[in-house]
């Protein structure tokens, strides 16, 4: 059984004859999957579209990621569940889910499974989801406003990301999450960079905004780039991706540290 949500990935496969599923179940009109619940904790149904996230995403970084995706036509149809279902390292919501330490909720006739995002993706377009499981939601703790998503690409709209970075600073929980997209077989969490950033916030005080020094921002960028495992491909070279990540890491820190 193949699930069809917005069709923005699956229909391309069908149109070009790359997949010929025998049974397709369309879930785009299942209201139970299209809800967003917020009460300190966010539960976003798999059927929530990017257009919907622009108005209400339960995460500033996720709203920013949704804004970068495709075009109005694609954002009106494409869903977070489809991004998780495709599990491409270039999926723009996935670095955000990694940085938020989100949980993927899977359900089958046998029951419900809650998988930390860190364990969900196992390779390019590969995940631990079994064929009989439906993605029903993604969940995370609301992390406050100090978060951002950025990516580099050839144009602002309609272009697959060459490298993407999400940064979430949860000031209340004293937690820093960073997720890197398009620079490895899965979404990468740069642990050293996160540790370094935590040190900066310990020093500056978690509860108040600060302006990181240029050298601190640069060091964070260096640690981010060092954690990436990029490859050369048609979209960009590994060296370009590393450089872009270092710049984005520094920029993200400077932006987020000033938001309280």
């Amino acid at each position, binding site marked *: 059984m193949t699930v069809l949500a*917005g069709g*923005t990935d699956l*229909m391309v496969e*069908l149109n070009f004859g790359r997949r010929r599923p025998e049974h397709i179940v*369309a879930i*785009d009109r299942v209201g139970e999957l299209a809800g967003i619940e917020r009460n300190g904790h966010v539960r976003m149904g798999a059927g929530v579209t990017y257009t919907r996230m622009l108005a209400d995403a339960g995460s500033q970084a996720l709203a920013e990621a949704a804004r970068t995706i495709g075009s109005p*036509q694609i954002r009106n*149809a494409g869903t977070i569940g489809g991004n998780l279902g495709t599990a491409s390292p270039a999926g723009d919501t996935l670095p955000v889910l990694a940085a938020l330490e989100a949980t993927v909720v899977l359900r089958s006739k046998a029951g419900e499974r809650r998988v930390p995002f860190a364990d969900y993706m196992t390779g390019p377009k590969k995940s631990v989801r079994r064929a009989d499981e439906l993605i029903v939601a993604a969940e995370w703790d609301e992390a406050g406003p100090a978060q951002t998503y950025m990516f580099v690409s050839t144009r602002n709209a309609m272009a697959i990301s060459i490298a993407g970075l999400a940064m979430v600073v949860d000031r209340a929980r004293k937690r820093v999450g960073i997720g890197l997209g398009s620079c490895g077989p899965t979404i990468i969490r740069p642990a050293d960079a996160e540790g370094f950033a935590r040190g900066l916030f310990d020093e500056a005080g978690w509860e108040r905004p600060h302006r990181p020094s240029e050298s601190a921002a640069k060091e964070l960028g260096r640690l981010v780039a060092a954690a990436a495992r990029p490859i050369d491909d048609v979209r960009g070279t590994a060296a370009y991706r590393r450089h872009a990540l270092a710049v984005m890491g520094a920029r993200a820190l400077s932006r987020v540290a000033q938001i309280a």
Partner: protein
Amino acid sequence: MTRITVTVNGAREETAVEAHESLLTTLRERLGLPGSKNACEQGECGSCSVLLDDVLVCACLVLAASVDGREVRTVESLADGSALDPVQRAFVETGAVQCGFCTPGLVVATHALLRENPEPSLAEIREALSGNLCRCTGYGQIVEAVQRAAKTMYLHGLDDE
């Protein structure tokens, strides 16, 4: 084959569709509505833009079998006989139509924009049309056409539609 019933431009249509067929194929090849164009079949060009239950989507990315019971509006619904609607007229008057292949998709996308936002800024127009490619015009006249259509529709209201 699966039988579906779908309301297209206000008329109830019943047709059989293949399991993996896109709505674009159904419109063009089964329902005699070739206005929505087929260029890329991968959501990149927007020339197949239609309104599905009033939401702007690429018809090439909609599974025909899944529109059973739903409502589709295509570019064919806009003109009244040979009388063009304000958006179509603005495209003609500003020279935004060269080969014309992208025009139906752009006209539908413009309608979707102006319905939500009757006075879009330049940036908002570019953003709203970012999913529609044109190989001929360089977009300048297209943006102008949208501004002109916005002005007409703002002055004369939606009855002019």
